[in-house]
């Protein structure tokens, strides 16, 4: 099993390697930075000078080697737009995004599991149906619509919550809810189905035949088993969350990396974009590795599937 985890880890590193190369060439394919990040109407001469100052007139291979060299020396260059070290830019923003992820993940798990459980145990009645409807609505709403509507309700009309920024934990509440919504829906659906699966298993019959009270049968024997498949989807959820965080951070004006990455992509700020994508890939790959390890820890039977 250790072998398989090690192989998974190597695979993850290989994935990162491919991402590192792919992001470099894909960004260069996507257009010239100078066409996007210089102010409209800048004169041609200045533009040419800027291009050469940004090093974009170098042969692609030289740029790539320089970029690789930077990766190993930890010097990812300066942002073309902000003109300061990319690392510094991300250092300012990463904590906010990670905090947001942590809140959203906690929220989704802390609410999703009990709700999924309740939905499974109330299968077929109105309460169960209400939970599932909630889950489906959370899943079907475009998240920027949800975000703006929440802002209008809780900040604009009710004045309960701050609309934007990342100053205090309370500022993270709405972004975390929006970020968590589809994930919450997924966890509710998944944990419900997992639990329903588990509830039909022989070992629960055994547990009942032992005379265990229902709270132990469900709370101990069923939940632990149902948690295992739920854990496996968390990894994918982190990937989805990274995709959504872009929109959430933009709407709530959270100083995070999602917002930054998208604007750097739109503005073709290569160094920022490159490092951002690598960082995101690192987050996704690491989280799916963590999930694999957690899976191995939770399920004594597991042999981590080599994919």
């Amino acid at each position: 099993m250790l072998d398989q985890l090690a192989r998974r880890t190597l695979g993850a590193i290989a994935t990162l390697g491919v991402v590192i190369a792919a992001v470099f060439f894909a960004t260069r394919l996507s257009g010239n930075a100078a066409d996007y990040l210089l102010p409209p109407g800048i004169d041609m001469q200045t533009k040419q000078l800027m291009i050469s100052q940004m090093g974009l007139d170098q042969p692609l291979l030289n740029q790539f080697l320089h970029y690789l060299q930077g990766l190993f020396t930890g010097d990812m260059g300066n942002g073309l737009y902000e003109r300061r070290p990319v690392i510094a830019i991300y250092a300012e923003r990463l904590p906010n995004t990670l905090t947001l992820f942590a809140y959203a993940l906690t929220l989704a798990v802390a609410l999703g599991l009990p709700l999924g459980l309740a939905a499974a145990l109330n299968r077929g009645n109105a309460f169960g149906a209400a939970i599932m409807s909630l889950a489906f609505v959370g899943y079907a709403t475009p998240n920027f619509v949800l975000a703006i509507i929440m802002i209008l309700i809780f900040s604009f009309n009710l004045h309960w919550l701050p609309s934007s920024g990342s100053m205090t934990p309370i500022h993270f509440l709405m972004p975390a809810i929006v970020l968590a919504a589809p994930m919450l829906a997924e966890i509710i659906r998944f944990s419900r189905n997992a639990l329903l699966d588990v509830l039909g298993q022989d070992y629960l019959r055994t547990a009942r035949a032992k005379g265990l009270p229902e709270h132990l049968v469900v709370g101990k024997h069923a939940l632990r088993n149902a948690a295992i498949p739920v854990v496996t989807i968390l990894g994918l959820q982190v990937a989805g969350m990274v995709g959504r965080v872009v929109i959430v951070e933009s709407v709530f004006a959270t100083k995070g990396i999602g917002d930054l990455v998208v604007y750097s992509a739109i503005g073709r700020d290569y160094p920022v974009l490159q490092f951002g994508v690598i960082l995101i890939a690192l987050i996704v790959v690491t989280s799916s590795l963590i999930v694999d390890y957690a899976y191995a820890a939770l399920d004594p039977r597991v042999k981590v599937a080599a994919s």
Partner: protein
Amino acid sequence: MLKTLLTTFALSTMLISAATAQSMTVGVQNLPPWLDPGKDFSNNGSQIYYNTFDPLILKDYSQAGATFKPGLATAWEQLSPTEFQVTLREGVKFQNGDLMTAEDVVFSFERVLQDMTPEYAGIHRQFFDNFASVEKIDDATVKFTTTKPEPLFEVLLNTSEASIVPKNYIAGLTGDKATIEPSDFDAFMLAPVGTGPYAISSFQPGENLVWTRFDGYWGDKAALEEVTLRRIPELATRVTALANGEVDLITNVPPDQLDTIGSNPALKVVGNVTPLFHVIFFNTRNPAMANPKLRQALGMGIDRNLLNEALWGNQAKVPNTHSYEQFGELYDTTDQTFEYNPEKAKELLAEAGYDGSVIRFDTDPVYYTNGLLAAQAIQEMWAEIGVKAEINVTTKWTGPDADMMVRNWSNPMYFADPAGSFGVMWSPKGSGSEMAWTPNEAYPALWDKFRYSTDLAVRKEAYSEIMAYVKEEMPFVVLYQPYESYGMRQDVTWAPLPGHIPYVLDFRAGSVTVK
């Protein structure tokens, strides 16, 4: 339980509410990624510089016309058509405590005139092309020399690009503390220091900026102890932050949202017609757009008044020609360069032999307020005269592309003279001409006559001639001067001043009060 929760929320909301009599928080649509007045003429940057930097010559910004006032220079004198001498104010301190000297003034201009970075070189070409040298006469006197006669010394020394920066501070930022290196300029962009009433005490590029009152300011002390700018790009969020008391003032409120804010008794909207034109311009070098008659037809096909009525609630200003009120004597209201005449447009189209082929209209999705809407409306209007247009929304600056046909753009007033708006774009070396328009051989001479003549009447006449030529050539169409609105709490008294270039957030003494 719920009650406790609500109390917590309410409490937190109160905590984040920034408005006290001495401080203010502003929600802006965008913040610049770096700050250096000598490099920058962007809309984002324009918001910032005036509070932190001073030019040599100030002016009375409360009126549109030009009434110059002493700034870092207490007096100035045109020695000859090509020489200009200023007397420096004594005892002026930079926000880092350094005393401003003649060396600082010389350096501030030299970094531009000597093209120390590509951007300085750009400013050099667009603003100070005529400047040959700047020299220190004595500790209190600096002399400027130009190649050709310069009628615009005061105007140019009043620009934000001509702000004075501390030489020693910049030199000491990186590397050798005594010499100027390119990295010093990079470092300065993140920790800028000027002589203005507000020091920038915190700056996170593109995200937020904090101004703290500079107690050593030479003039009237700043109106507020502290001003925080926060970037809130999403409109609904920005409006909500205002309504929710998280910020006291917001920028970039589109006309359609005025009611939302205005109907809230705690809030109000203030705005002005800003010295900036939304334009569309044609790539005259693209064979499809080469016929001036086609361009004239397209210009005549746009019902600018209808755009103003529908999209701007009639608050924008539809000018006859490329001219701003701020030009003073040179303000022209008589030339009718642009007009709506669909019948004539159809005739012209026929004459031009337009074959119904598709014209691609490039537009940025968000950069210009109502830009995308206007593009779609123009598309419809052109359909009325029989022109088929297709909208291409792109964040790429397609201006110089060979296959570009039509694109929206803005022509801001960088300084209060036709040379500072029309000139920057459409002079023989202007960026618009460079990209998309090849004027005839007579044009440079005509331009020079306008630009360097010291006789106002000659300049005025020359400008009229230029506009007549533009009407014939139609390389661009001015749509309107947008009405720029700001939302704020009732207890904030602030308004954009007509003497400023667009977007300036002027929080100096007398410009703002917070109850």
